[in-house]
């Protein structure tokens, strides 16, 4: 698994991420101590100094280029590019996996339907990333590593980038086997592994488990899913308002209404994934709103 040629970059990425996360936090801690002591950040002195691009920058670019090129050549000589059987539309491999860098999105399919996991969330990721500089008005921490001057921005980004994006890629590559079942690191990928499907929709919880309406699901889907729809609206609208009025009042005053609500909607959209994960793991919740008649499942 780990030694499969196409998986080597993912293992390499894991170690690179660990190293660079350590490096940036390490540098941030040094800078934070300097800031606390009322001194200039580590690289401020050198920021005052101008050097010529030729030779200073061009030289390190050149060295870097040679380094990467040597690595790439050695890699290409040692490992042959894999080629599988010819494409066969009637022979579906199990599991079928997306390209490795999209496995986080494919993992999201476990918890959300394709219209959310494959279309809405990726769009929100791209739009949200582009909007970051316009949402984050904190003038501090521009051009140096720091944590204390922007704890919220860095925590949110590290959570999204390391956990929700990269960890899910590693998870999807190494721990998801046939039928997209979970397999432990040394577990054999048994195609007959039984996974009990006992996930329940919120509406089924209300009407079947708690016996509302005599244990029968109402015929009208809107009536049936009314609680789920209400909860979703409360989450998408109510939580941002509560954040603005109560929990993040100071941030709201700093950002202003427009910036804050865009930030809040992006934030709770991001939080929607871990939230649904926890609901799935704890109470086996399948859908909060389940209207398969209109392909509308949340």
């Amino acid at each position, binding site marked *: 698994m780990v030694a499969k040629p*196409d998986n080597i*970059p993912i293992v390499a990425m894991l170690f690179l991420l660990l190293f660079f996360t350590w490096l940036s936090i390490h540098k941030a801690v040094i800078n934070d101590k300097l800031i606390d002591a009322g001194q200039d950040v580590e690289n401020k002195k050198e920021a005052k*100094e101008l050097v*010529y691009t030729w030779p200073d920058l*061009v030289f390190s670019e050149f060295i870097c280029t040679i380094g990467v090129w040597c690595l790439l*050549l050695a890699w290409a000589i040692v490992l042959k590019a894999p080629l599988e059987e010819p494409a066969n539309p009637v022979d579906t491999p199990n599991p*079928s996996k997306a390209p490795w860098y999209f496995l986080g999105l494919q993992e999201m399919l476990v918890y959300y339907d394709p219209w959310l996991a*494959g279309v809405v969330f990726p769009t929100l990721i791209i739009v949200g990333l582009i909007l970051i500089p316009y949402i984050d008005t904190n003038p501090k921490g521009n*051009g140096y590593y720091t944590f204390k001057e922007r704890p919220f921005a860095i925590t949110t980004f590290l959570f999204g980038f390391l956990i929700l994006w990269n960890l899910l890629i590693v998870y999807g590559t190494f721990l998801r086997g046939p039928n997209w079942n979970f397999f432990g690191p040394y577990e054999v990928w048994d195609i007959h592994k039984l996974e009990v499907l006992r996930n329940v929709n919120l509406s089924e919880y209300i009407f079947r488990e708690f016996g509302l309406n005599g244990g029968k699901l109402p015929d009208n889907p809107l009536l049936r899913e009314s609680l789920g729809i209400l909860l979703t609206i409360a989450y998408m609208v109510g939580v941002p308002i509560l954040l603005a009025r109560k929990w993040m009042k100071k941030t709201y005053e700093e950002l202003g209404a427009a910036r804050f609500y865009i930030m809040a909607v992006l934030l709770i959209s991001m939080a929607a994934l871990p939230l649904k994960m926890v609901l799935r793991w704890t109470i086996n919740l399948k859908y909060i709103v389940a209207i398969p008649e209109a392909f509308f499942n949340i």
Partner: protein
Amino acid sequence: MAKAGFLESLRKSQAWKSIFRHGPPNNSRNKVLAVLMNVFLHLHPIRMKKSGIRMSFTWCMGGITFFLFLVETVTGVLLMFYYRPTAEFAYSDIIALREHVPIGIMREVHRWGAHLMVISVWLHMFRVFLTGSYKPPREFNWGIGVVLLTLTLLLSFTGYLLPWDQLAIWAITVGSNMARATPFLGSEGPGASLLNMIMGFDVVHSGSDAFCVAGGPRGGRGDSAPLLRFALYIYPASAALLMAVHLASTYDGGISGPFVRLR
């Protein structure tokens, strides 16, 4: 002494002067000219903050990404000499490439380079975020960077498709099946019936998937692959264009670093 004399006379020759057009870059004026008068180097600023070229600060990831883009473009063009992007020939062309080209590592370089480029783009974004380098005046350039990141993934995605083996067809299928779930537009997305009612058909239907793009059996469009060819030319071209903007505006805004009042 004789050697120095030879170099000296070489530098004074008409041919040398016509190529380099400035003296050796050992004084300020010529260091400026070395960057300014070179079409490849002039995307750089002439001088920059010393802090901004420290490898421990930049991790060199942007530069590595740019270099890998060049590697991918060159090896990609070379591979295209041996390869026809159609369902009929693609696989056998790759086999032929493997069997008939002696000591060939072009496909290997191309493939591992593509993996590496995705990683280096991510690490570049990671670094830029953690140093707060997207903050004014670089907000717009961050946005271009996000578009470039998306383009990198799309470029790699088209590359996955090309060998037309089992990995390709099913990776692409997983990806393109999602398109059918697009709200309102797809045949399996929420609001699908709405658009169908107005327009009388689904915009993204069950036929519009990887097989269609690659001209495979299910799409039923024979051996032509217009969309794939389009992607093969359009993605690198737009990436190259945006990269030029990305680099130039990095240097216009100055490389990121702690704020100092210069002079």
